[in-house]
């Protein structure tokens, strides 16, 4: 078997194992709730009758043996039966899908903005190494990484209140209904999510560029008389982008964390609102399914980045 194929097979086995582990942990979630999860779910509802408790228990599937519960649950999920939300009666997958679209749009726009801003800045920072500018870049990027994105959102709101009081900052409209209105609503949230990502990326690009500027082929290019801008932009940057691509897997974590809290600042109906709402309403099945689906998506993204990495960089295949 060629080395590349063997590596992909190995990764695929790892992937299945991790997905299995993730499903077990997520499955156990409701079962680990101290006390009777069904009683807690019904909460302060005045009309709790033993019949209702039992009906809900059966609906959530908590009345069967544990192992059987898992197989019924995972079987339903794998055949696309995600059930209906406990309180709204809408299909769970619809609620999660609608929320995921908002979070996904926010994350992708923020990532795109971050890449466009961070790659040139990172190159510049690498180039200005060991000068006073380097220290400035360092302090600014560390501050950028540690800026709470929800605070940034609030500060941006304050600035907009003062400068352009007429700007629409609340009230989500889907992109397909009103593209311009949607982008206007998303502008501040995207900026808030993107800034910490920019800071992270600048550092990654800087380190990768420093590494690749020190390589022999860069020296060779310079010795051949290749112009400085071509050396930096073509020879060094291309190699430097490999570690940057892999870091996108890590960045998706930051993107999600940023989006979830920033959604709350701007009252966007995304995944953050969905999961926090699910906890407040004690809608455990909705919480469980959301966590499982989002995590599975994450695992898949990381898997693809891994594969992409081996495709881009032939050194890894060996």
């Amino acid at each position, binding site marked *: 078997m060629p080395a590349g194929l063997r590596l992909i097979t190995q990764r695929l086995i790892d992937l299945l194992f991790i997905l299995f582990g993730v499903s077990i942990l997520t499955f156990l979630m409701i079962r680990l709730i101290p006390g009777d999860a069904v009683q807690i779910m019904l909460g302060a509802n005045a009309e709790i009758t033993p019949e209702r408790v039992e009906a809900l228990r059966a609906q959530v599937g908590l009345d069967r043996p544990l192992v059987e519960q898992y197989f019924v649950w995972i079987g339903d999920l794998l055949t696309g039966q995600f059930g209906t939300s406990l309180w709204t009666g809408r299909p769970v997958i619809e609620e999660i899908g609608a929320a995921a679209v908002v979070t996904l749009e926010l994350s992708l726009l923020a990532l795109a903005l971050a890449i466009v801003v961070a790659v040139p800045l990172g190159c510049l920072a690498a180039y200005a190494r060991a000068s006073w500018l380097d220290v400035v870049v360092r302090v600014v990027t*560390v501050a950028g990484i540690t800026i709470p994105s929800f605070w940034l959102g*609030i500060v941006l709101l304050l600035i907009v209140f003062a400068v352009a009081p007429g700007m629409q900052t609340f009230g989500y409209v889907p992109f397909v209904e009103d593209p311009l209105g949607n982008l206007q609503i998303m502008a501040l949230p995207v900026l808030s999510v993107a800034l910490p990502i920019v800071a992270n990326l600048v550092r990654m690009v800087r380190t990768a560029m420093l590494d690749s500027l020190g390589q022999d082929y860069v020296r060779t290019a310079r010795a051949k008389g290749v112009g400085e801008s071509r050396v930096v932009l073509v020879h060094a940057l291309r190699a430097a982008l490999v570690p940057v691509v892999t870091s996108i897997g890590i960045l998706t974590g930051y993107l999600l964390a940023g989006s979830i*809290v920033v959604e*709350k600042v701007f009252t966007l109906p995304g995944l953050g609102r969905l999961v*926090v709402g699910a906890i407040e309403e004690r809608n455990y099945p909705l919480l469980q399914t959301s966590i499982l689906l989002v995590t599975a998506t994450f695992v898949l993204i990381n898997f693809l980045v891994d594969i992409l990495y081996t495709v881009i960089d032939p050194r890894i295949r060996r």
Partner: protein
Amino acid sequence: MTAALKAWRDMPTILAVAIALVAVQVVVAVAAPLLAPWDPLYQDVVARLSGPSWAHPLGTDRFGRDVLSRILYGYRSSFLIAFAAVAGSLLIGGTLGLLAAYYRGWTDRIVSRLMDVLFAFPIILLAIGIIGVLGPGTFSTMLAIGIVYTPIFARTVRGPALVLREAEFVTAIRSVGAVDARIIVHHIVPNLVGVILVQTSLLMSAAILVEASLSFLGLGTQPPTPSLGLMLVEGRNFLALAPWDSIFSGLAILFAAFGFNFLGDCLRDQLDPRLRD
């Protein structure tokens, strides 16, 4: 003592600045009750939503509570939660990583697989899920952050420990009959201190941000206990009237997280000769 003094003198300025910054922050966090001019829960009803003044240097919130005092107490609890979570995950994750690296085989396989699964969850989502199980609150937050960071420490320690295990000096010590526990504690752990310090510092910074995020979402510290994340969200509804608590509590979070991240960053450079100028 003189050795410590010498180490301090030989240190690069930037690292010394970072250490001093974190030291000041720890002192502020510990001494918060002494520094706070007001009781953080006292409601000065007449002075509700007022701006900075002599009586209330950073203004008051919608209940007339002193913002500076609440920030100091919130700062303290952020530090405590982050510290407890990071210390716990270092202890458990670090030990698991060490054992996995040292004993290899099945121990390694089981520990590594378990850590891979925990690591697969996006940090914020796993923390939210754990709080979903335990119910919102300070203790849940601490536990959630602790669990989320456990696989990170396990990985941080496992890699370098695997290398050290095969190092010549370890083989030499083993050949003279040292027992496993002694090799691990006296010869492997001391060589991991650098990596652990860097990771601990960076994760302290991240934990402060996660704690603030969870409180901001209403899942962490519950009102009326002062918490930086909670102050941000409480102030959000009165932004146009009195942005003080939102602005200053956010700055406090930024300041707290910055110190540890900066320290971790400087330590990493110091320990990695390739990055040193």
